[in-house]
């Protein structure tokens, strides 16, 4: 009886399809070399499992945990609902979970993509670094008035006037230029409440154009409310109640128009 040789690639394909015992029986018909090859492969798999088969219950490092926590991103119902006069899409999207938003964006691929978590994370990082500054919270102070606006406009490459948030009880301290996450230029404007709480407005130009829903990202006690307005990504960040941020966001949105 002659045995038909079988190619290794063919055995690999069979191994993908057949349960182990059927595979072994099938290979037996092709001679002992085919079976020996299978034995060798199984030996390889066992060795790889013993070498690299790490403990799957090993706790995740804290840095992964905090990333996951910051990824728990929500669209915000109440805020967006109150702002619906301002935003065409807000009311529709606000009530949807991100999962539903994903489904929606699959069905409507032309809709501008929401800003990534990365954008808000950049705003939060910048807030954390500079709002803690006592001596130099800003690069150019608000009392330089026109100069501040001109400077920010030149650096951002887009007209921008720091919004006046005195109605919200926030006084403009000034602004600074900083690198955006993707190598672009970002600007940060800092405001302060009479109690000393600081709020930052972070702006960076975005490659895509379009308006999006408000999104919210929190990290520790900091909350960032962010959205895309035309070619600008905007984020306001503070360690303040969300209700306060809502009002500020509405004011900022109106003034940036």
């Amino acid at each position, binding site marked *: 009886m002659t045995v038909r*040789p*079988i*190619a*290794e*690639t*063919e055995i*690999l*394909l069979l191994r*993908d399809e057949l349960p182990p015992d059927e595979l072994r029986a099938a290979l037996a018909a092709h001679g002992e*070399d*085919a079976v*020996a*090859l299978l034995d*060798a*492969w199984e030996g*390889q*798999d066992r*060795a*790889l*499992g*013993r*070498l*690299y*088969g*790490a403990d*799957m*219950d*090993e706790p*995740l*490092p804290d*840095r*992964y945990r905090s*990333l*996951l926590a*910051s*990824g*728990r*991103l*929500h669209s915000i119902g109440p805020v967006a609902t109150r702002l619906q006069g301002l935003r065409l899409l807000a009311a529709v999207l606000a009530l949807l*979970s*991100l*999962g539903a*938003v*994903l*489904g929606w*964006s*699959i069905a409507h691929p032309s809709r501008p*993509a*929401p*800003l*990534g*978590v*990365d954008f808000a994370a950049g705003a939060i990082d910048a807030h954390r670094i500079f709002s803690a500054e006592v001596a130099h919270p800003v690069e150019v102070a608000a009392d330089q008035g026109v100069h501040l606006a001109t400077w920010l406009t030149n650096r951002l490459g887009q007209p921008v006037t720091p919004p006046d948030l005195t109605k919200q009880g926030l006084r403009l301290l000034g602004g600074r230029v900083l690198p955006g996450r993707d190598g672009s230029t970002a600007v940060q404007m800092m405001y302060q409440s009479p109690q000393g709480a600081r709020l930052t407005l972070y702006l960076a130009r975005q490659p895509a154009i379009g308006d999006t829903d408000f999104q919210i990202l929190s990290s520790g006690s900091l909350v960032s409310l962010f959205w895309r307005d035309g070619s600008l990504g905007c984020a306001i960040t503070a360690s303040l109640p969300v209700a306060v941020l809502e009002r500020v966001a509405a004011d900022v949105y109106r003034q940036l128009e």
Partner: protein
Amino acid sequence: MRPLLDEIETAIPPLRRYARALLRDADLADDLVQDCLERTLDRLPTLRAEGSIRAWMFRILLNLARDGRRRRAQLHFLPLSEAPQLAASGGQEDHLELERVHAAMGRLPDDQRAALLLVALEGMSLAKAAEVLDIPVGTLVSRLARARAALREMTGRPRKQPLLREVIK
């Protein structure tokens, strides 16, 4: 939303295991998984639902590993690594055998090691592994055949006589 993030979290232990086997350095591997996690979360809002998140994350991880390798190659940096800590069971001979396999894995070309680990360690089907690697199943199969043959030769147990080998396009 929650199920998506839960799915991401569940994928992390296998990604770490895979990254460690791929890079052969636990610290580099954990950094790679962190980059992968960041990129995954960052792209989540624009995710088009195709296939599983886990496969998507493996794909991101492999792309990042490839970029990282390019950077390291420019620096002429080759990580030397010790064999991972082995379970206490098994005798000395067994241990030597495993060390041979570990050394041989390190000498496999990167694309072969990446492919073999997806199937042999992660237990992925050919279709799933091909999706992760973004190559046709036929290409994957010939890559796996080369990897397994090379591994056998390097661990000192060449086949008695060559079997017919065939290249699938």
